[in-house]
């Protein structure tokens, strides 16, 4: 296409241009997702542990993207059940060391290209949640978890819920904003147990 348009045509173009859809959330189609993924493949590069395979969308991301995080309930429930069945729950007590858990909750590191692979990651928990009353700089994207265990107890069922939710939050709420910390291999089994302890252990500051 010639770039130098006749003046009149250019003027027409200007005056006819509809206002941009500022402030409106577009409905994304499967085709849009593929277009964006292709753009990411073209315009991004791998760095450190952040490999290019991360731009590929999985089933959860696809469904949430095309429905702006509000997928049809039936589809969401079916996928959640599938994810729940895939969580590798360890046997025995799921309560680790809350002191180690507190450190993991404080740390915002892990899974970034700037993090050394193999170095212990954090869970970024305080970025979004209130936990220990000693930490007053907490985020609010997620609900407050203060008194979590005090309110709910630490039954085996509650341990399983907390462990599973941290391992794969999407198994409980498909389009949750919470990362899948176990599924994404950000945190280890032991680290998740330590976070379960931070939430459920009666001695944890969360329950004071």
């Amino acid at each position, binding site marked *: 296409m010639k*770039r*130098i348009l006749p003046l009149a045509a250019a003027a027409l*173009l*200007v005056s006819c*241009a509809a206002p*941009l*859809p*500022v*402030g409106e*959330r*577009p409905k*994304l189609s499967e085709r*849009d*997702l593929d*277009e*964006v*993924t292709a*753009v*990411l493949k*073209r*315009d*991004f*590069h*791998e*760095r450190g542990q*952040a*490999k*290019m395979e*991360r*731009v590929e*969308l999985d089933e*959860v*991301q696809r469904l*949430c*993207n095309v429905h*702006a995080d509000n997928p049809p309930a039936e589809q969401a429930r079916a996928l959640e059940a599938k994810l729940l069945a895939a969580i590798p729950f360890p046997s025995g007590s799921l309560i680790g060391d809350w002191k180690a858990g507190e450190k993991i909750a404080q740390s915002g590191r892990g*899974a*970034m*290209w*700037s993090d050394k692979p193999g170095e212990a990651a954090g869970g970024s928990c*305080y*970025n*979004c949640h209130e936990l220990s009353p000693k930490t007053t*700089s*907490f*985020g*609010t*994207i997620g609900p407050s978890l203060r008194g979590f265990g005090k309110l709910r107890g630490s039954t085996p069922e509650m341990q399983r819920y907390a462990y599973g939710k941290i391992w794969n939050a*999407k198994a409980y709420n498909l389009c949750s*904003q919470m*990362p*899948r910390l176990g599924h*994404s291999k*950000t945190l280890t089994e032991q680290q998740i147990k330590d976070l379960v302890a931070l939430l459920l252990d009666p001695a944890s500051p969360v329950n004071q």
Partner: protein
Amino acid sequence: MRAVALLAAVALAGPAAAQSQFEKYQQMTAEGSPVELFEMEGEALWRKPQGPRNVSLEKCDLGKGPGVLQGAYAALPRYFADADRVMDAETRILHCMVALQGRSLAEASKRLFGNADNPSEMEYLTAYVAGHSRGVRMTPGTEHPKERAAFALGQKLFYHRAGAWDFSCTSCHGQENKRIRMSELPVLDRPEDARPIVATWPAYRVSNSQLKTMQWRINDCYRQMRMPEPNFGSEATIALNLFLTATGQGAAYNGPGTKR
């Protein structure tokens, strides 16, 4: 009388972004900001003959004609016919380093993001260029077909969840009155939230004493979204920048800013 005028002004401005508990902090740090030092260094670099042709950037066309700095930053990103693409300030400066100074793209983009001890040439230059738009209304390009395509792509990118942690821009910038730790999060697809943000980049960040550009801001968001790294000045980053700037257009440019 005056109160009436004030009320009218408020009404015209529309709903304001949520009031920050850090308002006084932000106002005082902006007043006591060393950001002008970066503009000064940028001016020296702008005038310094460099590259195989040993010429300065003083004839660089940032969209208002060769050598015109006044108001140029506030009209970016926009479409440039000579490059047949939409460009933001950093990309255009890089373009001038290559086209005017005869530098190779590889050499000119060897070190785009600096650090506190050694800021980059790009950071200094962007601060200098942006400083010439103070008080000028933000009017990025929104009419050329390629500008409109960039807006549409940027908008799709904004809502696109992907990566190891399933984040999109909206994971942090999609809901009102949310914080990460104590940082208050603007809802960047809302014009009233986007306006003060796009009008204050590039910015001196007090947490690490560095002058940072919008290209860096987008890069560092993707880092923390656990995504691979965006290429500097790529179509994706400029599209996202145009989407944000068009969403926040209309405010008077008030940078280079000072931020946490």
